[in-house]
Structure formats: structure tokens, C-alpha cells
């Protein structure tokens, strides 16, 4: 039985059509970026799901930690004045 390969894990992002952003669709293994793109094409675009592929080595991604989500994200929760519905504008003014 063969020993472990040293293929990296790549995160795959696909743009489904122009005008939309690339979106994360999953991951796969490949020895290098060029092979990652070839594999991503076979694995994630078999039914015309995309027109552009980004591949990013998983270990190059720095993610925020779920433990920090409270200090990071809750301060926005009580800032209702950042939303348009906070402001009362009479109907006769029209759409704003």
C-alpha cells in the first residue's frame, strides 16, 4: 500500500457567471495549483456550474476564531441607526 501523498488541500471558489462573485464550493487535494484547477473543473463544474475557478491553499487562509465572534460581531447588533428603517420619513416624500 502506498504511503501518504503530500498533496495539499485547496479551497475552491467558482464564479457561476459574470456579474457574480466567486463563491466557495468545497475543497480538494492536488499536488499544485494547476492540478487543483484541473481537478476542480472535474469535481465542481460537471454541469456548467461555472465560468471561472479560483484555487487557494487551505493553509493560506487565516480565519477568525469562533471564540472571538462575540467581541468581533456583537457590537454591530445594537447599532440599529446603521439601517435605513431606523429613520422615519413620511410617505409623501416618496421612495428614499
Amino acid at each position, binding site marked *: *500500500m502506498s504511503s501518504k501523498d503530500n498533496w495539499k488541500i485547496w479551497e475552491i471558489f467558482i464564479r457561476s457567471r459574470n456579474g457574480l462573485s466567486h463563491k466557495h464550493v468545497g*475543497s480538494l487535494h492536488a499536488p499544485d495549483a494547476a492540478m487543483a484547477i484541473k481537478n476542480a473543473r472535474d469535481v465542481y463544474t460537471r454541469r456548467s456550474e461555472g465560468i471561472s475557478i479560483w484555487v487557494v491553499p487551505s493553509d493560506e487562509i487565516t480565519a477568525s476564531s*469562533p471564540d472571538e465572534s462575540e467581541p468581533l460581531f456583537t457590537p454591530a447588533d445594537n447599532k440599529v441607526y446603521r439601517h435605513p428603517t431606523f429613520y422615519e420619513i413620511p410617505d409623501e416624500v416618496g421612495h428614499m
Partner: protein
Amino acid sequence: MTKEMNLEERFQAYVDGENKVEPKDWMPEKYRKTLVRQISQHAHSEVVGMLPEANWITRAPSLRRKVALLAKVQDEAGHGLYLYSAAETLGADRMDLVEDLLSGKAKYSSIFNYPTPTWADIGAIGWLVDGAAIANQVMLCRTSYGPYSRAMVRICKEESFHQRQGYEILMSLAKGTPAQKKMAQEALNRWWWPSLMMFGPTDDNSPNSAQSMKWKIKRKSNDELRQEFIDKTVPQAEYLGLTVPDKNLKWNEERGHYDFGTIDWEEFYQVISGNGKCNKQRMKARQDAHNAGAWVREAANAYAEKQAARKAEEGSAA
């Protein structure tokens, strides 16, 4: 200890609130282990599941059937890959998982240890085996673990063509010559009971199910899924003019479900423990494929290293 308890309680409340768990979130160790086992078994099943059908690719009766079967088998490889990727988000290593399959330590769905002696079996697999898999997978689209759920959504989208191509094969045979119709009936006879076994032991014999349901890894019990599958499939068999091989199968007006006969669980446990018709053949095919592919993996590594070295050299020369 108390802190650990609190974490587990918080986790349960989080899951009870229909929230998805993502890879870096805290989760009970047993939740992680259960998922790695279940997702990797599921992945192995997709991979081994290619074998019974690959058996007929070169002998498909028309080009239309051949391209469809090829595309289906290619999908199964893709499904295996999505699932291995989902397992890796839990810290598992794909090569370890593959080695567990090849050494016989890990299980895969027992259904793939049955042989495909005729072309009609390919129809029966698509209709019944993929049909049963879809019932399970539709439920798993709502599983509590995010990456597993996303893989399932993707798989379900692709899988529905599998079932339709299988049913179409059986429609052609059922409308064909008496010999073709007989072939279709025999395939149904072969695959009916093993398909019902795919949902696993009855609820009272499925000790791990309760915890999986509590964690919302599973959303329906084995017996619930099996009943749904039977209720959906029996009318489809009638449409084909084929007879489901169960003398006790009868619509129960009161329950609003079909009653059905007793499943031969002895057969199920025999096949699981390695005594099915094709267990050895399937394992050998996987091992041979893995070994025969070793040079491809090595060559890809060597090429990637060479390219990286060349790039570094060009960089330093500039």
C-alpha cells in the same frame, strides 16, 4: 467537569435551535467521531458503489445508455470526493480514511456486495439503490453539521438523474419482449430486499440512532425512511407491471402506509461481516486500483516539485 457539561448543554441548545455547526465551532468529541465515521463510510460507499455499475459500462446496450452510465459513475466518484472533503473539515486525513477502507477496517454500504449479472440490474440499482440513497440523503441535507449538509445538497441535485436513468432502463425492458420483462422482474427480485436493508437495522436494534437523532445528525429514523421508500416505490413497480417480491406487501388503509414482510436480518449481518457474494471482489478491485494508481500520484508529486524548483530558480536568477 462542570465547564464541560455546560459546553455540551450549550451545544445541544444550539443544535435544538436548528443552527448549523461549522468546522471550528466547539463540538462534543463524540459528535466529531460519529460524524467522521458516518461521513467516511458514506464516502467509501460512493467509491465502492462505482464497481457494480462499472461492470456494465463497456456492455451498455446503446451509446445513449453508455454515456449516461459513464456520467453516473463519474458522479459517484465526485460524491465520494465531496464527502471525504467534508470529513477532512473535522480533522480527519483523507489518506488515513482510504487506508481504513483498503485494510477492511472501515465499512461501506453492504448493498455494493451484491453482483450485477444482467443489464437489468443496472436499471434496478438506479431505481432502487439510488432511490433508497436519495431518501437518506434528502434527510441529511438538513443534518446539523454544515459541511456535511452542503455536500448532501450538492449530491441530491446530481443524484436525481441517477434514479431516473435507472427507472428508464427498466421501463424499456418492462415494455420489451417477454425475455426482457423477465430480466427486469428478476432484477427487482434480486434488489428489493437488499435495498430495504440499506436503511439499516430496525429502530429497536439501532443503538446509536437515538444520540444521532438528538444531535440532529439524523433527522428521521431507519424505519421511518424505509416506510417512506416503500410507499413511494411500490406504485412505481406497479407502473412497470412488475411484482414486488413480498407476499405480505399490502396497503394498510388505517395506517396510510404499506405493510410489508419481515426483512432477513441474518442475511444483512452476514453481508456486513464479509460474507456477501462480492465482498472480496470489491475489496480487491479497490486495492488493485489504489496500487495501480500509485505511480500517477508519485508522478504528479514529482512534477509539482520540479515546477516549484524551476520557478524558484527563475526567481533567484531575475
